[in-house]
């Protein structure tokens, strides 16, 4: 009976781990485009970030232009349209030391403005700033890139669930075995 309950626990745990593994093959990416200017109102949604943006970019007013969120597969190229003929092309390569390794390319039409390989702390945000633009005459465009791999915390949650469900999962099996 002990063997049977142990085997059922192993089966349940294996299933949970496989499920966790299948779910883990993705990365959550958030790309937020912000227009920065010397003067003018600040978007209420960005009010909390304004001091930090001010320190980083030096502008006083920030307006949210667009926000995109996608769940992307590892080692797959993903393109985010930023408008004005610009795009952000990401290639998530993998995780190392709790950091998301990815290639990031910022394109203007076919022109490559930046091509970089970054190691961003998991769940962290980095910023690309596009300088003064002749089309808008003033200010700059900021692109906030956030990447989060949920693998670690998902696995942690699944492991916890597996531990918690152990007595419940094994008891019915035990009773069935006992009835036979």
């Amino acid at each position, binding site marked *: 009976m002990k063997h049977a309950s142990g085997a059922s626990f192993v089966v349940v745990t294996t299933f949970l781990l496989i499920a966790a593994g299948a*779910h883990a093959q*993705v990365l*959550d990416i*958030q790309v*937020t485009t912000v227009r920065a200017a010397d003067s003018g109102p600040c978007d209420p*949604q*960005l009010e*909390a*970030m304004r001091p*930090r943006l001010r*320190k*980083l*970019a*030096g*502008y006083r007013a920030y307006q*949210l232009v667009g*926000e995109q*969120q996608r*769940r992307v597969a590892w080692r797959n190229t993903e393109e985010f349209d930023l408008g004005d003929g610009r795009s952000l092309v990401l290639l998530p390569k993998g995780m190392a030391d709790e*950091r998301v*390794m990815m290639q990031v390319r*910022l394109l*203007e039409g076919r022109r*490559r*403005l*930046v*091509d*970089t*390989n*970054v*190691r*961003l*702390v998991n*769940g*962290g*945000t*980095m*910023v*690309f*700033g*596009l*300088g*003064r*633009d*002749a089309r808008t005459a003033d*200010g*700059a465009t*900021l692109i*906030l890139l*956030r990447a*989060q791999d*949920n693998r670690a*915390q*998902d696995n*942690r*949650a699944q*492991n*916890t669930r597996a531990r918690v469900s152990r007595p419940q999962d094994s008891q019915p099996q035990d009773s069935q075995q006992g009835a036979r």
Partner: protein
Amino acid sequence: MTCTDVEQLLGAFVDTELPPPRLLDVARHAATCSACDGAIRELTELRASVAALLESETRQLDLSGVWPAVDAAIARQAPARPRLTALRGGGAPGATRIGAALMAIAATALLLFRPATQQQPGKPMTVASAGRAARSSNDAGIDRIAGRGITMRREPKTGTMIIWVASAAGEGAR
């Protein structure tokens, strides 16, 4: 090998990540092509400047106050010590060690299985959540970077990095 091929392999060439025959091909092409040779030199210089920037940031870290602060913290907690000593003296030493081991295990378990505080999978992230993320560590490292008119800045508190790209009409960085 053409200039287009070299452009594709530029980053990997500078980082010496190419297999030796490919490395040689790029080097041979660069020896006869001034444009590609210039691009390689430019990228090498940029890489050096990134390394220098990171090094200077590391040097700027002032750790001189760490040990005095640790000493001060220990001094503040000094009145609590006699109780611990008394506990150690009064109880069995083995029991204290077992207690300490149990506490360490409990702390490790708490660390490993603490509830997730970050964004839940599937739950939409908002600008506000990005703001919360910005308050935590945003440390980013640059392994390779290519482009023209690039400047980088890092906020020391959270390590948030901004990569400025100059557009046609001039610089945006302040």
